[in-house]
């Protein structure tokens, strides 16, 4: 431990500490009698009091169904729901609030694009360009679409560092490419992809671009107009908001031309048994009663993050990532998987002769919550010829004490397994 601390001081890394853990009630609860060290933010983030309170307050003061009641409370709930849409619009700098479709999360947003835009657009032989970095939720919806349309998937490979092979991207991109679906930040490795540049190249051959932003929105500023992409999907629960609410942003022109993908109330203009006409976007894609409380709480999460400043959060996490990377690299037997030059706060690693699941159990005994496994990115694990990794993923409340706890817990695992190196 001492050696590690000294090494770091030599590196002159001075991680910031936002000091906001007290905003998150769950972080005060012990686990196994120990302080909870929550490093599984890539799976889901914890919720600040402001978000919990917003959801509670909605049900206590504002609950009614939206877009249908003449009574005051229904109008009030509708106003809150639509105000949340505007909050999202501003957060990602969308041109219009109508470009923001509420979904259950990133997965549903991507499925929406596949089943509405994709089924209406793709033909046999058309190509969808993915990357090895993709989460299953940005692979399987396209495979389903390919079965339905005869389109085919092409995959951009990555380097050993976990960076996209840009030459291969150029080589695979062609007039046959109708869609490029790419993650903004790799959930398993943390690699930040050069989305704006890739989008420009894709547009040059006439392809549409969908960006999976699930791991990106909480960690750096996302400006969909600056990125230039056509669709952007993300989840509320990885942004300190509740589960069950997410966003599909789509260009107005694209959304306007897309058919509905689910039928029901709220998405229609008129219904008769001879046929129905559909509402405009975004309502066309929001069949049934949506997660109204979730949208309000998501807006509260965005307000919370914005009040801190997303750039400040990004700077904090970047500094903490550098600190944690050095701290893990200093442990003999630890190998980092994913060492891209441009990374978000995700550390995937292997500990020599300790399987990730054994490691996960032992870390948990110290109150350190990490993810162990394939991270819903099996093709990526296959690429590295590993069954899975241990993954520590950072959030705005993490600090050096959490990294110290992680390092100490890894040492405990190595002690238990008898694999701790005594070499300097």
């Amino acid at each position, binding site marked *: 431990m001492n050696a590690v601390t000294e090494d770091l001081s030599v590196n002159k890394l001075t991680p910031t500490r936002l000091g906001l853990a007290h905003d998150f009630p769950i972080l005060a609860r012990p686990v*196994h*009698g*120990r302080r909870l060290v929550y490093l599984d933010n890539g799976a889901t983030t914890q919720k600040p009091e402001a978000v919990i309170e917003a959801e509670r307050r909605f049900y206590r003061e504002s609950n009614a169904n939206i877009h249908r009641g003449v009574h005051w409370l229904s109008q009030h709930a509708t106003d809150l729901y639509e105000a949340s849409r505007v909050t999202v619009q501003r957060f990602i700098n969308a041109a219009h609030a109508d470009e923001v479709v509420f979904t259950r999360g990133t997965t549903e947003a991507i499925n929406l694009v596949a089943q509405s835009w994709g089924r209406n657009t793709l033909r046999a032989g058309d190509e969808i360009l993915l990357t090895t970095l993709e989460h299953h939720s940005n692979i399987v919806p396209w495979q389903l679409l390919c079965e339905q349309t005869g389109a085919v998937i092409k995959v951009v490979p990555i380097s050993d560092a976990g960076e996209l092979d840009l030459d291969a991207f150029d080589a695979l991109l062609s007039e046959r490419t109708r869609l490029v679906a790419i993650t903004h930040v790799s959930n398993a490795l943390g690699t930040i992809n050069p989305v704006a540049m890739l989008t420009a190249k894709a547009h040059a051959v006439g392809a549409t671009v969908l960006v999976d932003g699930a791991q990106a929105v909480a960690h750096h500023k996302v400006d969909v107009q600056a990125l230039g992409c056509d669709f952007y999907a993300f989840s509320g629960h990885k942004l300190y908001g509740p589960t069950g609410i997410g966003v599909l942003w789509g260009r107005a022109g694209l959304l306007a031309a897309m058919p509905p993908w689910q039928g029901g109330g709220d998405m229609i203009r008129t219904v008769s048994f001879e046929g129905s006409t559909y509402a405009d976007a975004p309502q066309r894609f929001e069949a049934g009663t949506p997660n109204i409380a979730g949208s309000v709480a998501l807006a509260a999460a965005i307000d919370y993050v914005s009040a801190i400043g997303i750039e400040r959060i990004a700077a904090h996490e970047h500094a903490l990532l550098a600190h944690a990377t050095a701290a893990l690299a200093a442990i003999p037997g630890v190998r980092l998987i994913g060492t891209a030059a441009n990374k978000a706060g995700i550390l995937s690693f292997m500990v020599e002769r*300790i*399987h*990730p*699941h*054994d490691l996960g*159990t*032992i870390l948990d*005994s110290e109150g350190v919550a990490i993810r162990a*496994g*394939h991270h819903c990115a*099996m093709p990526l*694990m296959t690429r590295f010829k*590993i*069954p*899975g990794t241990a993954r520590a993923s950072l959030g705005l409340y993490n600090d050096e004490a959490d990294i110290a706890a992680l390092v100490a817990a890894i040492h405990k695992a190595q002690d*238990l*397994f*008898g694999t701790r190196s005594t070499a300097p």
Partner: protein
Amino acid sequence: MSNIDSNLRELYQEVIFDHNRQPRNFHALPEADHHADGHNPLCGDQLTVYLRIAGDKVVDASFVGHGCAISTASASLMTEAIKGKPVAEVEALFRAFHTMLTDANAAENEAQPELGKLAVFAGVREFPARVKCATLAWHTLHNAIIGAQAPARTE
């Protein structure tokens, strides 16, 4: 020692480390007449169990594959435990093993002496997420005995 630390010691006993580091019967069995695959895709644990059954007796058993310490040690100790035993006894052992891992009352049930060295896995019961690691080899063994074609899974 805190409760969780004593549970952890119960889970990771020296016998388990020993069999994880040096798994016994860890090879393919060319003369096997039964074999089956086991795969827990979420964990990545993967193994093949080989058996040679003569009459009603398991005369040889081995495995290959990879997994966590619990899964590897379980497969290793299993192959040791079943060699030379009648098939019916092997299946009974599987049931007793499974009960020990999943039934909270099994701890007070002293009447399971036939488990022998396999009793080191009793600590797994305190870690419900790891039961699937300890039982994968056994489910695969069962499939090998009954000649099931689909890979065994415990998740």
